[in-house]
């Protein structure tokens, strides 16, 4: 029974922790600008994160190898070092976007100045990581992030045209779009793939598996968490997209501010819906800030062979602790320069997808290596999903920067 509760909690935590500021922004904007036409991209990216998340958990459980140990062994030191630097930069930018997002939400709730709230948010997150046992941090942010379920309830309540929603799962580009809008559509597609597959999610998930000393007996739980947890989390993001298509698109509202999405719950449920949505977003985005801050530290510590671990006291992993403290400090400094959170979100998704192929290649290689994985090497199904997905991801990575520049970050 205790085991069942643990599994349920783990899955719920994965659901609540799935949505971050980038998914929030791009899901709401995608629905408002293109209706249901980008649903298939969300579904496709969710399949990708389930495949690679499961693989990273399996490698952690069987080969006991965190992602950045693999980088050095499989990519060569120089390319591994490049990937490390790029990944840390991506994590810092993403962390800054999350801190900015939390500050924006709190500003909507309290009316206090944005910069002050950014400083207080960063300090609160650092204090929480320093003081609380990690299991608690993960559970608190993940479970309270489930307040965002109010978006899914709103979806049911506003009665979207379900047949059109279902049609959105078929790969498509809206017919009759001018070339300019097609570029924006393609940019949104790449950005959604990037937002769902953020590399920090894999660093964080696999490092957690190693710390919790997963073994082959945990492989079923790993599979369940990545498929069910990530799948349900993605449904939450889809609910935001559908709500935006129903509520914002007819009124030509472009929800560029993350807080605008909260109106989706306010329209059917009034003040209570608004508060639940904002609170859920604060906790979900705070959780993502914690994950990105720690992921930069994981990456660095694992690459250089320092003591690391979120279950360890700061004194037992001092260089790891300095690394996450520095990540939060730099991220906060970026926020305080006055750069808009939306701009940070765009930088995060574009830079992130460029790093993604380098993150997933060593994972694919080692998951196929019987010397490390024994009988738990990738099966045919995983490879037939993983390799083509990897190819498409590489194409998306090459296209990301040109599309960002051509689409002016979606501002066309």
């Amino acid at each position, binding site marked *: 029974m205790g085991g069942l509760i643990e599994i349920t909690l783990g899955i719920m935590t994965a659901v609540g922790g799935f949505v971050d500021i980038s998914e929030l922004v791009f899901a709401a904007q995608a629905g408002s600008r293109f209706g249901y036409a980008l649903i298939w991209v969300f579904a496709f990216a969710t399949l990708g994160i389930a495949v690679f998340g499961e693989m990273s958990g399996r490698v952690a459980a069987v*080969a006991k190898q965190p992602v950045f140990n693999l980088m050095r062994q499989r990519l060569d030191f*120089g390319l591994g070092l490049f990937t490390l630097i790029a990944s840390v930069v991506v994590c810092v930018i993403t962390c800054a976007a999350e801190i900015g997002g939390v500050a924006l939400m709190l500003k909507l709730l309290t009316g206090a100045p944005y910069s002050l709230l950014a400083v207080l948010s960063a300090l609160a997150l650092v204090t929480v990581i320093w003081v609380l046992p990690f299991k608690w941090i993960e559970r608190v942010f993940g479970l309270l992030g489930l307040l965002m379920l109010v978006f899914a309830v709103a979806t049911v309540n506003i009665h979207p045209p379900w047949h059109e929603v279902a049609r959105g799962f078929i790969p498509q580009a809206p017919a009759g779009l001018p070339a300019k809008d097609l570029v924006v559509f393609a940019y949104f597609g790449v950005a959604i793939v990037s937002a769902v597959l953020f590399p920090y999610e894999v660093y964080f998930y696999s490092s957690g598996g190693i710390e919790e000393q997963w073994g082959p007996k945990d492989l079923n739980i790993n599979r369940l968490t990545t498929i069910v947890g990530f799948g349900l989390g993605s449904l939450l993001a889809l609910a935001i997209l559908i709500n935006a298509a129903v509520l914002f698109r007819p009124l030509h509202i472009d929800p560029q501010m993350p807080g605008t999405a909260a109106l989706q719950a306010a329209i059917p449920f009034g003040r209570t819906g608004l508060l639940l949505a904002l609170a859920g977003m604060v906790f979900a985005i705070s959780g993502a800030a914690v994950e990105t801050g720690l992921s930069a530290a994981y990456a660095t510590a694992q690459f250089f062979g320092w003591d690391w671990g979120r279950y360890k006291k*700061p*004194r037992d992993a001092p260089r790891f*602790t300095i690394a996450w403290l520095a990540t939060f400090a730099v991220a906060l400094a970026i926020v305080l320069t006055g750069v808009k959170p939306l701009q940070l979100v765009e930088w995060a998704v574009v830079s992130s997808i460029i790093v993604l192929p380098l993150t997933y290649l060593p994972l694919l290689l080692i998951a196929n290596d019987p010397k490390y994985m024994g009988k738990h090497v990738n099966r045919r199904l995983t490879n037939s999903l993983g390799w083509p997905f990897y190819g498409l991801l590489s194409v998306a990575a090459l296209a990301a920067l040109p599309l960002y520049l051509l689409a002016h970050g979606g501002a066309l």
Partner: protein
Amino acid sequence: MKPDGPIKLLAELRDLQIVDKDDRICGICDDIELEGKPGGPLRIKALLVGPGAYEHRVPRWLFAVVRLVAGRSVTRVPWSSVETVTSRIRLKTTGEAQGLRQVEDRLAGWFGRLPFA
């Protein structure tokens, strides 16, 4: 177990994590020192750990950056101190006995003075 036959040095040793006899992380095997004479067999003399060992693995300009940020110290761990080589290199002794974990231990002392650390 420790391989007694020929091993693929680069593939099987370099970049592996090193743990001590108490399973504490002690660094990464950044390079390997060999000994031997021309025409004779090569033997592993020591594992090299530390930023100084990156010198032959990265472009010169990058090593200059590494040296600036992390210094160029190298710790030599004698091959005789290695207990096993699997997906990790396990030592027969504590990391401290091999001159490893010095920075970690020094910082741990400072952190120990902070609340909740």
